[in-house]
C-alpha cells in the first residue's frame, strides 16, 4: 500500500477490528493473507520467537486462570501481524505527510515531526542493539541475562545523547513549533481496494456487535 494516509487508516481500522472480536480477527487475518501478500514484512526467527512467545505466554496464563486466553492470543497475533505489515512498508516522511495533511502546518507539523523522530529512533535502536550485542560478544559475553544490564544502560544513554543533539540542532535551526511543509502522496492501483476492504471489515464487525446486542 503506497498511500500513507490509507495505510495508517487501514492499520487503525484493522487493529480495532482484530482486537474487538475473534470474528473480526478472522476477517483481518483473511485480509492480511490476501491483500497483505508480498508486503508482510515478518520479523526474523529470534524476534518472532520473542514477540509471539510473549503473546503465547500471556494467553497461556489468561487461559490457565479462567480467562479467554486462546481468543486473546489469536486476536493479539493478528494485531501484531498487521503492525509488522504497517511498520515495514513505511517510508521516511509518511507520518509527517499524513500529520500535516490531517492537522495542518502547526499541530500537524509538530505531531509529524515527533512521530518521524520516534520512528527513526526505533529503526536506529535495532542497529544499536545489534552492534552492542556484537561488541559485548567480542569483549567476552557473560550470557544474555548478564548482558541485558550494560545493553539497556548503553542504549538508554545513547538515546538521551541523541535526543539532546537533535534538540540542539532543531533549536539552532530556529525551530519553535510548526513549520511549512507540503505533503505529497503516492497511490498504487490496489490501495483503494485494500482500504475499502478494511472499511468493510470494521462495518461487518460493527454489524455483528449490533446483532449480538
Amino acid at each position, binding site marked *: 500500500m503506497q498511500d500513507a494516509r490509507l495505510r495508517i487508516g487501514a492499520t487503525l481500522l484493522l487493529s480495532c477490528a482484530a482486537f474487538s472480536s475473534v470474528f473480526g480477527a478472522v476477517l483481518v487475518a483473511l485480509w492480511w493473507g490476501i491483500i497483505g501478500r508480498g508486503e508482510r514484512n515478518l520479523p526474523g526467527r529470534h524476534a518472532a520467537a520473542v514477540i509471539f512467545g510473549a503473546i503465547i505466554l500471556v494467553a497461556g496464563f489468561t487461559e490457565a486462570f479462567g480467562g479467554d486466553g486462546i481468543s486473546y492470543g489469536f486476536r493479539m497475533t493478528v494485531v501484531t501481524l498487521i503492525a509488522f505489515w504497517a511498520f515495514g512498508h513505511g517510508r521516511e516522511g509518511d507520518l509527517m505527510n499524513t500529520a500535516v495533511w490531517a492537522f495542518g502546518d502547526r499541530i500537524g507539523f509538530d505531531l509529524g515531526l515527533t512521530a518521524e523522530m520516534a520512528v527513526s529512533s526505533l529503526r536506529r535502536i535495532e542497529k544499536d542493539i545489534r552492534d552492542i550485542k*556484537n*561488541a559485548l560478544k*567480542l569483549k567476552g559475553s557473560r550470557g544474555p541475562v548478564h548482558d541485558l544490564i550494560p545493553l539497556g544502560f548503553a542504549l538508554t544513554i545513547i538515546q538521551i545523547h541523541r535526543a539532546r543533539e537533535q534538540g540542539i540542532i532543531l533549536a539552532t535551526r530556529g525551530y519553535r513549533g510548526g513549520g511549512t511543509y507540503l505533503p505529497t502522496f503516492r497511490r498504487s492501483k490496489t490501495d483503494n481496494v485494500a482500504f475499502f476492504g478494511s472499511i468493510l471489515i470494521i462495518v461487518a464487525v460493527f454489524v455483528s456487535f449490533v446483532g449480538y446486542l
Partner: protein
Amino acid sequence: MYLKADRLTLSHGEWNLRADGVFGQGVHLVTGPVGSGKTTLASALAGIFEPASGRINRDGILHLTLSMQFPEYHVTGFLVKDEIRSWHLPVAETLRQAGLDGRQNAKTLTLSRGELKRLHLTCLLGNLWDAVILDEPFAGLDCREKKRVCAAIEEGNHPLIIIFTHEQAVLPAADVIWEIEEGALVCRGKVPEAIPAWKGAPRYLTRATEEGAQPKNIRLQDATEALCRMHA
C-alpha cells in the same frame, strides 16, 4: 599468521563490496570514502557480519577483537574503574595512560565522546591480541590523542593490526596500504612502494611525492624528513 578475505562479497540491499586479499603480520591501513563499506568490511573480518559469498580464513589467530566506531557500544562497567577492570587492566595505570587521572569514580557513559574513546582505545590496546581491527580509531580525538593512539599502534604489541580510517592528518607508520575503490578492496602494496599509487593519500604525502621526495612511511614526519633529505 594471517587473516584472509577469500573472494568475499558483502551486501546491504543493492550495495555490494568485493574483497579478496590476505592481511599478514604488520599494520594494514584501509582507506576509502565515507559510505564505501569500511565498517562493513571491518565487521566481516571480525566475524560479526555474514558475507553474501566467500569466507574469512584465520591462520594462527586465536584472539581477535574489533574496536567499533562508537565506544559506547563496548561499555560494560557502570563506573570508569569498573570498565577498566572489565578489560582486566590495572585501574591507576590505565587512567594515567588515558589521561583520565582521578576519574575512576566517574560514570563511564557520562564521559564525553572523546574521553570515552580515549578510555576505550587505551583498554583495548592495553590487552594482548593476535589481531586487532580498528574502525575509525581517530574519530572524535584531538591531535594529541591521535598521536598517542598512533604510538600505541606502533609499539607492536599486537602482531596484526588493521586500521579502517579516512583520517588525513595523523596516521601511524603502516606496512601495507589498501583502498576501497568502486566497490572493491584493492591492495596498493607495501609501504613505501605503495605510496605513489595510494589515491586517497593525505595531502602532505601527495605534496611530498609531487615534489620528488620519497617518504619512507606515511606519517607527516616521514614526508617532512623526505623533503628535508631532498633539499639537504
